[in-house]
């Protein structure tokens, strides 16, 4: 685990930068809030509703679900790729079968129109 110590230093350093910047500059920067300034931007028109009350397209959800499927596949491909020179033809055939199953699902999803944004 000692190899991963630099990650900690980088994360702390990256956190210090914005926190210190915001904290120190709070003493110097102006703060003159008024109701108009603090309302959400809507091209100058007064907002009639909260953004959170609105619905958004179900397609975002669909994309997220599909992403999970495909991203898990990439995670399986990584160790295979590292060991490839030891597996060779066996590894190739196996990966073609594995990706073949993925492609069947992919074609199905495409035909059902899940990839079309309209």
């Amino acid at each position, binding site marked *: 685990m000692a190899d991963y110590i630099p990650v900690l230093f980088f994360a702390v350093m990256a956190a210090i930068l914005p926190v210190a910047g*915001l904290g120190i500059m709070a003493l110097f920067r102006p703060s003159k809030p008024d109701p108009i300034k603090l309302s959400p931007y809507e*091209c100058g028109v007064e907002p009639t509703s909260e953004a959170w009350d609105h619905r958004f397209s179900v397609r975002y959800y669909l994309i997220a679900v599909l992403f999970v499927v495909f991203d898990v596949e990439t995670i399986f491909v990584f160790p295979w790729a590292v060991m490839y020179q030891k597996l060779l033809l066996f590894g190739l055939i196996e990966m073609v079968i594995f990706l073949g199953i*993925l492609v069947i699902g992919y074609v199905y999803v495409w035909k059902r129109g899940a990839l079309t944004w*309209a």
Partner: protein
Amino acid sequence: MSESILYYGVIPAIKAVVIVLVMATAAGVLTLFERRLLALLQVRKGPNRVGWEGSLQWVADTFKLLFKEDIVPAKADKVVHYLAPLFIIIPAMTVFAVLPWGPEVSFFGIKTPLYAMDVNIGLLFVLAVTTIGIYGVILAGWSSNSKYSLIGGLRSAAQLISYEVPMGFAVAAIIVMGQTLSLVEIIEAQKRMGLWFIFPGLVAFFLYFVSGVAETNRTPFDLPEAESELVAGFHTEYSGFKWSMFFLSEYANMVTVSAIATTLFFGGWLRPFPNVAFLSFLDFIPPIIWFLLKVSFFMFVYIWFRGTFPRYRFDQLMALGWKFLIPLSLGNIVLVAIAALWGKTGLTVLGTILTIAFAAGIFLAFRVPPKRLTVIEKSRPTEVPA
């Protein structure tokens, strides 16, 4: 004991401070570079008032941002609104821990490599940590309680995860060639083979760079920030220092994508043709300069893209990612795996074929007149009506 404190405490701490501060400064300089270059591409002057030819513009901008009022919308989720910039800047900066800037050098008698760490899962670390930034984007969009921000955040999340998949498969093709996930060892593998992975990985490079541009929300894939429709998208409601954090992380991510592209495809800190002896006079340029030159080139390409391409529409963006890049990346992996059956010879042959095909493609693109243009020519009225 003191030895281990030096190697596990002091040196990584120094590297973290130096790299993060240099990157924060470099992001400022890059904004100036981008504005000047864009001005050049659009035949205008760009910032040329502060300092010599505008060279201190970025300092002025930094101070302006530091002294700006910090506006938090009255109806926003205040805690999340505060945390979102942190969520986006911390991963963007943490990735720099694994980027291999250069090989081992010696400072005051202490030998140390020019990277903070070389872990055996380097590439996986980069993919994993950069992806955390999506939380910052979507939380920023949601917490602002503004319709533009919310749509911008959702779009951004959908775009980032869509292009994560082809990027992963493109990187996997490089792992097949290099047989390792460690970024330093990938460079070493390219040195052993005497072959930059760009040649057998031409398709993978295309996939990686297009996905990289999409993941950093840059033109032509800058839909989350589309000024003309979403007024800056997920960071509409941010101002001053918090806003500059979004900007800083965008530039940091651009540098990361450029550095990874350099490492995976262009031999990292190696000089061109590392095994050709008569080019060894190029060794007088230190490795880190080679690395920075290559990274600068990709930063230039980023800005060149911004000056050249119009923005995609959202459905086109999704179609490009899901219907074109994913099948291409799957095919590419199988292609590279078949070539790798014959080891170095197979990869060299594949590289030669791809390079010739690429050159022929460019040649044809310039020779054959585009069809659409001729249609427009024909439809144009030949006689001006009286």
